[in-house]
């Protein structure tokens, strides 16, 4: 799997037009990642496009080190989002706010009420986490990224991420209890 991906990246380095294949492969992931972090639709569009454009512009400097190419894209997207927030001087929007609006489920009223309650709980918990903790939770449990890759994306050591995950979950558990 990674070999195929590596080949794709190497091909794209030699021939820029092959980058489109990488775009096709990772667009959905990156879009979801940015969408969860930024509530403004236009901004999401801009940031996603900027992410791929940056990746294309700097593809030749990318060195394969055994991590998925998506880690690099996540990292670019992560930095772009941070810059966007810095630029717009906005407080970071709660990424899960809008989820219930687009959930396409047809539960019973009781189920719906329970789900809303749970959503509300999770939302509250996420709001009370630090931005870094929230980002780790997002990457780990929403994007399914491993600790080592999170470390790559966030520029921290893998051990540090492990500790952070533990502490964040502990904090979340306490918050859910209360």
């Amino acid at each position, binding site marked *: 799997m990674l070999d195929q991906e590596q080949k794709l990246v190497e091909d794209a380095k030699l021939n820029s037009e092959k980058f489109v294949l990488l775009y096709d492969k990772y667009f959905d992931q990156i879009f979801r990642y940015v969408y969860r972090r930024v509530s403004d639709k236009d901004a999401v569009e801009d940031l996603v496009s900027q992410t791929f454009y940056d990746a294309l512009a700097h593809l030749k400097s990318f060195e394969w*080190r055994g991590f998925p190419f998506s880690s690099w894209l996540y990292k*670019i997207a992560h930095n772009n989002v941070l810059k966007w927030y810095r630029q717009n001087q906005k407080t970071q929007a709660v990424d899960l706010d809008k989820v219930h609006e687009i959930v396409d489920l047809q539960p019973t009223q009781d189920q719906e009420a329970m789900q809303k309650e749970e959503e509300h709980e999770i939302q509250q918990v996420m709001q009370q986490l630090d931005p870094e903790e929230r980002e780790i939770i997002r990457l780990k449990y929403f994007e399914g990224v491993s600790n080592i890759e999170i470390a790559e994306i966030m520029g921290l050591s893998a051990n540090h991420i492990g500790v952070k995950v*533990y502490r964040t979950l502990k904090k979340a558990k306490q918050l859910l209890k209360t």
Partner: protein
Amino acid sequence: MSRPVGRYFASVISKIQEYKRQENIVLDPDLKARLRANLIAKIQGVAGGANMQFAAVAADTIAVSVSVPKTMSARFNPVEEASPSLAQIFPEEQELPGESGPVGSILDKEVEDGSGLNPQFAEVTEENGFIESFMKWKYQLALIPAFLLVVVVVLAARRLPVDFSTKTQEVGSSQNQQTEIAQTTQPQTQAQQAQTGLAQPQTEAQVKPLSQLLPNLNQGNSLPSQDSNETFTQNVQSIPSYTQPLNTPVATAPSQPVTTTQNQPMTTPRVQTPGPEVAVPATTGDPLDIVKINNLVSVKVYYKNDFTGAQKTLFEQENLIPLLSNQTVSYVIVRDGGSGKTIVDVYKNGGTYSRYNYVYNSRLNVWSRTGASSLPVQQAPIPAATTATTTTATTTTATTTTTAQPPIQVAPQPQQTFIPYQIIQGASFEYTLSQNSVINYTRVNP
């Protein structure tokens, strides 16, 4: 650590995962296709040997000059802002020098041993330091004979008894002949121009902008020896001319020499010709796309995201001025590539104006307003003549030259429906920007 974490926090993790399952982020296939098409266009656009970073400049550069295509100006303008370095993309890398990430490591490696130039060296470096150093020395040693060879060739060339003087003389003589021919033909050309009414300066005006632009292009998008204020002043001076209702395009007025435009770079193309063909659609990458006036008093200035193709509002002002039927409002949008500012000036008949400064972040495609929204009352750039009634709007067109020539009145042309900044009761207009930030206008709803 993972298993205990999984057990102990099972309830939390399950709740998060349940939440994730419930979320249904709808991906817009149109958006994906559009971005894909733009990406392909970008790739193909720079496939002709241009550096990818220059493509970023081309995408982000606000119009630098008037007569040079943006892609061309971009290639001559390696703007740092528009071609971000790796360090700009990954700011955390600088803050954490000990990081072992792929990009950081690439940078470190390139700085330390220069192996970034050749990835094969990087592999050798990791496995065997001796081989790496040997290879490096081998290549460096190989350069020495090459250098010596060059030195020998240069020295030999100096001593060769080649008689370049005769050839030079021949070339010089042919040049002289050409000069003589040119001198003999020049008076005739001038005489012909005098007869045909085409003044000599007009030819210069056509040639000079390019020659003026080329040195400026190497100065990082700076406009020629002018800051934004000066540019603005010149626009103010030139407003009366294109708000005066004229009936003929400039091209049909050969008696007006345009020599005065030579010293005013921003005003050289300030020529508006009537007709639907004048409403030039905004070029790709032009961030300021359309100025639209609805219901007489609302103004919107859009810009276009070059990459996504999406339009967004840069400047919006509703209920701007309670206009009378014979009043005039002008919008002048100046894009100063040097300062990076985009200035939207709003003029009203009574002499007030507002100025809006915007700075475009080329990396994030974001505009931010920096200047004061309202400035004190100043002399109105629009003369009283421009407040002429708009009932004859269908016969009026605008023209712009920097000389204060009286307007040439020509017989009305009923088929023309273009009005220079004249606001008519019950009509709305769509203004399209030309490359030089002068607004061409199209009446949308007569």
